[in-house]
């Protein structure tokens, strides 16, 4: 029992719940009935089913999967929060006290690789954030996937995803972390391609998988190299064991690659790890997969872009931060302008990505695409902050961003849901009620698995509409394709879905960093403050980062406002938008989809106040009179080795003013362009004639990065494959094979000749010999037991005689 | 080996110690085996008297008072008779058989405790010893039947061996009960263990089993198909005459009484009785009880008709053996349980009547239950046999299996 109460062991239990849920759901809910595809609205999309029957989860397995999945994540939520609060309650937590426990894992050669769990301040904040966000996403999924035939699979997969994320959070060594990392990669692949009937979906899935895989391989190289040098992968052993001896070693050994260019082993490993993170957190060269990942269900987008995967990349870097900063000969000191290659790389890449993605986000019309790009740019913020040594600020931003970005995605998801609802409504009105009643089964199933009998009629209607509209959709697919995610089709949703509207607004303002009251403001302000401090001391990278981030923040505020206005304000630009809605204020779908929004809104606002700088006027003395709580907590997660110790930027009015200005300015500009006189239907985006159509299309098409990659990588590899196919395979290898075959035929003929006289001769000779020998031997087989026994006895006596003689018993009886 | 009493005296007298021990042992053996040799002579007279009374005769009354000396006269007659040995007989075995037969009975007396203080040998494995030497009797009869090279004799011998070997099984199983209760195989300990309660009262069924199978061992009626005069003239001892026949005869008589004594020793408290610590009274008690059972045995012999061999075998294999096995299992389980719940004394030697009471009640109840079952079974079988007999179908069909 002590196992379940001792905080040293409890971390083991944290990932357990979701993983168990995954296993149980996978094994137990394999019962599905085939139903004609017309019967179901299919998640948020309409895959081209034709009339192919699809497997539909039975009500029982829906109920089971939902309950089991929720149970798993709730269990890990309870366990991890108990651990976290116990940890925070402890005063020297992080300095002298960390919770952890490890056991032997793999024996390689002489030394044993140990696997274990660890809770130090960094994990603690992750463990505070991840389970609650994931729980919200789970609850949300109940409603969002209510009509999806594969709901059980969905819950299984996100349970596995959550389990992997938690594993990554509690692991105490790099390899174990990498395991969780890879499992998350797999889950993201499966979930992005969840609606694999859609070509775009599975293509996006493959894209994400391959892109991240490239990065992961390089990261694995880094891990292997690290292990090769230090002989361990345990974080605390690497970084804190007898204050950084291993770091000294890492810093002093020149790298095997570019060692001559002043690369230390630490820097090389750092670069490798950062490349891994660039892939995982979608930084500049490898960011292309993330916008396409929007093909997955919206909860998945929230999962990947807010709570789990992208933050995992940043988390890994903060985890290994001392390695990047390095020690010994090549040691860096970002606060005094000394940079190692990895830090520089992070600063540049992060800052550039932040702005780059922001610009792209401006021109998108897809609700989720805008959020995707904003995610990329926010991650860029974090990377940049890490690059300039402000890892506490980066962590802070990681947490707040997780909250408000999850909030944004979920509310955008409910917007999409509302739009679809409206769309079905429209179709249903267009064609009356015929065939609307033939879907009792689906309705019943959904009703039962929600256990909400009292809303059955609304729900029934909903299902009916869905089904009907769905059936219609195939008929009318080509005549007009309606995209429920296009903001141009929305507008005026403020009154249709008020809860979603307020949630979206809170999240958006937080993202834009609306001053003083939103979490995003405080975290962004930290980063800017750090950057400004470096810039005032005249360090180039700091200045670069500061400028880029300021502009990016401005754009962020702008497109956030644009999104808000286009979506919620003004008049409904289409009939669908006019009838949008979550199917009634209190049906189970809207409830399960709105509850998480409320929870997350709370965090999106108040999560910021744990990190208010001490000397901020008024608020500082209110919220963190004893110094910023978050700062002091996380700072302890990295042992202050002098050059790593985060600096406490004294309150400086300029960056604050800057962040005030960019936030409010961006918001105001957005309001001016879109809010004051909202877009009418069919009216083009005013941005076009401001930017000029060419630039606008460039941005809209993501700077043609995808086409570039297609040209650079895809086409050549296809060409090479083609070449290999035609020349090498068909020409060379096949001819070789044919030659071998012909040779074999000749040899066969030869052997056949050989057979006739040699083999047959021998083959007949052997039995003949055996026959003769047998004829001679059979005389001994008299069948007379006593003769046999006599032989046995004689032999035994002889053996005994030999033994006696050899043992000298006969020679000299003593 | 200790050397006391007579051995000591001889040793003091200047004999070599080994020889002294040997002589003293020899004397002891003679004394012990003297008792049965003398009793048997009386027993023959007693038996003849009782048989005569049962058959409404007077019995021997001429020689001596009440014909007491009749046996000596017969003995004399047997001794002066001509001793015939068939020419085709196997001489050695033919002559050895009667000796072995008598010795097998006599050897049993070596372990019988006459009084708390007087017994031939207190063997650690007395019961086993007793059974073993009793099995020698089988051998002797076999030998006799075969050696006298006579087909009647051989048939008789076959019957005997079949009968005895079969009936040894229930006997041994029924002897397991006293051993199990007393926790020892020494006859002395077994008798001591019955100070509080006779085993015959605690486990009557095994007493009955032992009595029946002992009766069969002696080859007395209703099991006297060994010397079934009407079928095979006299059985295995047809060729014997003179003193050899007398030995078989004496062995048989003695065996009956020995069985009575063993029954008393195993099940009816041996020499226990009022004032048992006085040797003579103890001996008197033993003899008294023994003669009661001896009388019962004679009674049965003279009143019950002979059974057919197949009936005997069927009764043994299909009734006695299963019953005895079940009996052992039930009683062992009960005793173990009672000991676990501390209602039975761990060691029965010296246990008082009160201590023994609960165990006794439980075992008795179990025995009564089993007895009711087996009696009902036998009754139904008997009815079936009678029905079959009335329908003039061969009885064996109904009885056998």
């Amino acid at each position, binding site marked *: 029992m002590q196992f379940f109460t001792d905080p040293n062991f409890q971390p083991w239990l944290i990932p357990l719940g979701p993983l168990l849920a995954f296993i149980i759901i996978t094994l137990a809910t394999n019962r599905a009935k085939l139903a004609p595809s017309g019967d179901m609205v299919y998640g948020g999309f309409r895959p081209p089913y034709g009339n192919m029957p699809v497997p539909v989860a039975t009500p029982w397995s829906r109920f089971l999967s939902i309950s089991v999945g929720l149970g798993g994540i709730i269990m890990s939520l309870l366990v991890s929060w108990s651990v976290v609060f116990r940890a925070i309650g402890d005063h020297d937590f992080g300095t002298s006290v960390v919770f952890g426990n490890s056991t032997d894992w793999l024996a390689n050669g002489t030394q044993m690789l140990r696997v274990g769990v660890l809770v130090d301040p960094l994990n603690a904040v992750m463990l505070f954030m991840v389970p609650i966000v994931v729980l919200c996403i789970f609850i949300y999924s109940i409603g969002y996937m209510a009509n999806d035939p594969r709901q059980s699979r969905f819950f299984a997969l996100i349970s596995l995803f959550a389990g992997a994320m938690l594993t990554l959070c509690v692991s105490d060594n790099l390899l174990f972390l990498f395991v969780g990392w890879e499992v998350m990669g797999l889950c993201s692949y499966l979930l992005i391609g969840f609606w694999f009937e859609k070509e775009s979906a599975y293509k996006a899935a493959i894209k994400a998988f391959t892109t991240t895989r490239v990065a992961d391989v390089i990261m694995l190289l880094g891990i292997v190299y690290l292990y090769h040098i230090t002989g361990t992968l345990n974080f605390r052993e690497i970084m804190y064991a007898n204050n950084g001896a291993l770091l000294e070693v890492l810093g002093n050994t020149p790298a095997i690659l570019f060692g001559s260019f002043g690369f230390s082993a630490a820097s090389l490993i750092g670069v490798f790890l950062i490349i891994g993170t660039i892939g995982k957190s979608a930084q500049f060269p490898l960011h292309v997969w993330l916008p396409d990942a929007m093909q997955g269900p919206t909860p998945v987008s929230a999962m990947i872009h807010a709570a789990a995967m992208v933050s995992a990349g940043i988390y890994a870097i903060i985890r290994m931060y001392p390695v990047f900063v390095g020690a010994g000969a090549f040691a860096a000191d970002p606060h005094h302008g000394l940079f190692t290659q990895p830090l520089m790389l992070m600063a540049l890449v992060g800052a550039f990505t932040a702005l780059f993605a922001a610009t792209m986000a401006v021109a998108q019309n897809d609700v989720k695409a805008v959020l995707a790009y904003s995610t990329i740019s926010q991650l860029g913020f974090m990377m940049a902050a890490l690059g300039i040594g402000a890892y506490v600020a980066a962590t802070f931003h990681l947490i707040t961003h997780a909250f408000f970005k999850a909030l944004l995605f979920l509310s955008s998801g409910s917007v999409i849901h509302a739009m679809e609802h409206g769309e079905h409504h429209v179709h249903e009105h267009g064609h009356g009620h015929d065939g609307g009643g033939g879907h009792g089964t689906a309705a019943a199933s959904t009703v039962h698995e929600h256990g909400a009998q009292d809303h059955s009629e609304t729900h029934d209607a909903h299902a009916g509409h869905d089904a009907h509209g769905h059936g219609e959709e195939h008929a009318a697919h080509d005549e007009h394709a309606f995209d429920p995610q296009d903001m141009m089709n929305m507008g005026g949703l403020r009154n249709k879905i008020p809860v979603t509207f307020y949630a979206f607004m809170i999240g958006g303002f937080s993202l834009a960093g609306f001053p003083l009251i939103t979490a995003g403001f405080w975290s962004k302000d930290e980063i800017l403050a750090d950057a400004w401090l470096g810039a005032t001391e005249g360090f180039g990278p700091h200045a670069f980062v500061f400028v880029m981030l300021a502009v990016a923040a401005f754009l962020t505020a702008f497109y956030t406002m644009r999104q808000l206005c286009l979506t919620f304000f003004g008049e409904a630009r289409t009939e669908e938008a006019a009838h949008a809605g979550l199917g009634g204020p209190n049906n189970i779908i809207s409830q399960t989809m709105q509850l998480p929004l409320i929870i997350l809104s709370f965090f999106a606002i108040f999560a910021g106040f744990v990190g208010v700088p001490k000397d901020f006027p008024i608020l500082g003395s209110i919220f963190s009179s004893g110094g910023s709580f978050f700062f002091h907590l996380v700072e302890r997660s990295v042992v202050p080795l002098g050059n790593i110790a985060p600096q406490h930027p004294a309150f400086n009015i300029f960056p604050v003013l800057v962040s005030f200005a960019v936030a409010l300015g961006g918001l105001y500009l957005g309001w001016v362009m879109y809010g004051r006189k909202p877009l009418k239907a069919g009216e083009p985006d005013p941005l076009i004639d401001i930017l000029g159509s060419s630039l606008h299309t460039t941005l809209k098409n993501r700077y043609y990065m995808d086409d570039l990659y297609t040209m650079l990588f895809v086409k050549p590899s296809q060409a090479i494959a083609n070449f290999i196919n035609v020349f090498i395979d068909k020409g060379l290898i096949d001819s070789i094979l044919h030659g071998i075959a012909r040779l074999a035929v000749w040899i066969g003929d030869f052997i056949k000749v050989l057979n006739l006289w040699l083999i047959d001769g021998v083959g007949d000779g052997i039995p003949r010999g055996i026959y003769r020998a047998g004829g001679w031997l059979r005389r001994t087989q008299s069948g007379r037991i006593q003769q046999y*026994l006599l032989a046995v006895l004689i032999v035994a006596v002889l053996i005994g005689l030999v033994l006696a003689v050899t043992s000298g018993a006969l020679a000299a009886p003593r | 080996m200790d050397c006391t009493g007579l051995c000591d005296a001889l040793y003091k007298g200047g004999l070599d110690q080994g020889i002294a021990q040997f002589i003293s042992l020899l004397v002891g053996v003679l004394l012990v085996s003297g008792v049965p040799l003398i009793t048997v002579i009386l027993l023959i007279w007693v038996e003849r008297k009782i048989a005569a009374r049962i058959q409404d005769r007077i019995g021997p009354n001429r020689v001596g008072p009440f014909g007491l000396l009749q046996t000596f006269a017969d003995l004399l007659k047997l001794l002066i008779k001509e001793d015939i040995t068939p020419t085709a007989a196997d001489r050695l075995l033919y002559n050895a058989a009667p000796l072995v037969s008598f010795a097998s009975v006599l050897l049993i007396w070596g372990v019988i405790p006459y009084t708390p203080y007087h017994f031939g040998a207190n063997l650690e494995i007395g019961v086993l010893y007793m059974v073993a030497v009793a099995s020698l009797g089988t051998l002797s009869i076999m030998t006799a039947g075969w050696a006298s090279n006579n087909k009647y004799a051989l048939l008789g011998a076959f019957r005997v061996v079949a009968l005895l070997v079969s009936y040894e099984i229930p006997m041994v199983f029924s002897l397991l009960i006293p051993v199990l209760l007393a926790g020892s195989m020494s006859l002395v300990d077994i008798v001591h263990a019955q100070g509080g309660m006779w085993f015959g009262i605690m486990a009557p069924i095994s007493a009955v089993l032992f009595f029946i199978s002992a009766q069969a061992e002696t080859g007395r009626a209703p099991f006297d198909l060994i010397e079934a005069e009407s079928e095979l003239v006299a059985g295995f001892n047809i060729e014997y005459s003179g003193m050899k026949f007398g030995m078989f005869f004496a062995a048989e008589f003695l065996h009956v009484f020995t069985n009575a004594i063993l029954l008393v020793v195993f099940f009816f408290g041996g020499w226990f009785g009022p004032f048992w610590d006085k040797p003579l009274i103890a001996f008197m008690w033993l003899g008294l009880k023994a003669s009661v059972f001896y009388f019962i045995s004679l009674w049965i012999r003279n009143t019950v008709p002979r059974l057919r061999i197949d009936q005997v075998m069927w009764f043994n294999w299909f009734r006695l053996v299963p019953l005895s096995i079940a009996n052992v299992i039930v009683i062992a389980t009960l005793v173990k349980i009672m000991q676990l719940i501390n209602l039975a004394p761990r060691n029965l030697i010296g246990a008082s009547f009160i201590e023994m009471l609960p165990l006794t009640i439980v075992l008795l109840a179990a025995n009564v239950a089993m007895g009711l079952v087996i009696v009902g079974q036998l009754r139904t079988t008997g009815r079936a046999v009678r029905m079959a007999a009335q329908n003039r179908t061969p009885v064996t069909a109904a009885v056998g299996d």
Partner: protein
Amino acid sequence: MVPLWFYLIVAAALFSMGTFGVLSRRNGVAVLMSVELMLNAVNINLVAFWRYLTPEKINGMAFAAFVFVVAAAEAAVGLAIIISVYRNRHSVIPEEADTLRG
């Protein structure tokens, strides 16, 4: 007590005699009896060794008891076999039961 090797000598003699019987007797029953003799010799050795070398253990007696069991089983089955062989071939001479002669 007499030295250990007395018993060993007697056992060895018994064993050799049994061996001789097994090897040479024409009659199957006699062969089985000789086997019994050999088993007995083994038993004597077991008990003697137990008594002289490890009297504080129980193994000697226990093994002897098991040898009894085995001997009984062997005798029963062997005799049964002999009887059935006799029934089929009207001979108890193992030398004549040589259907397996090569």
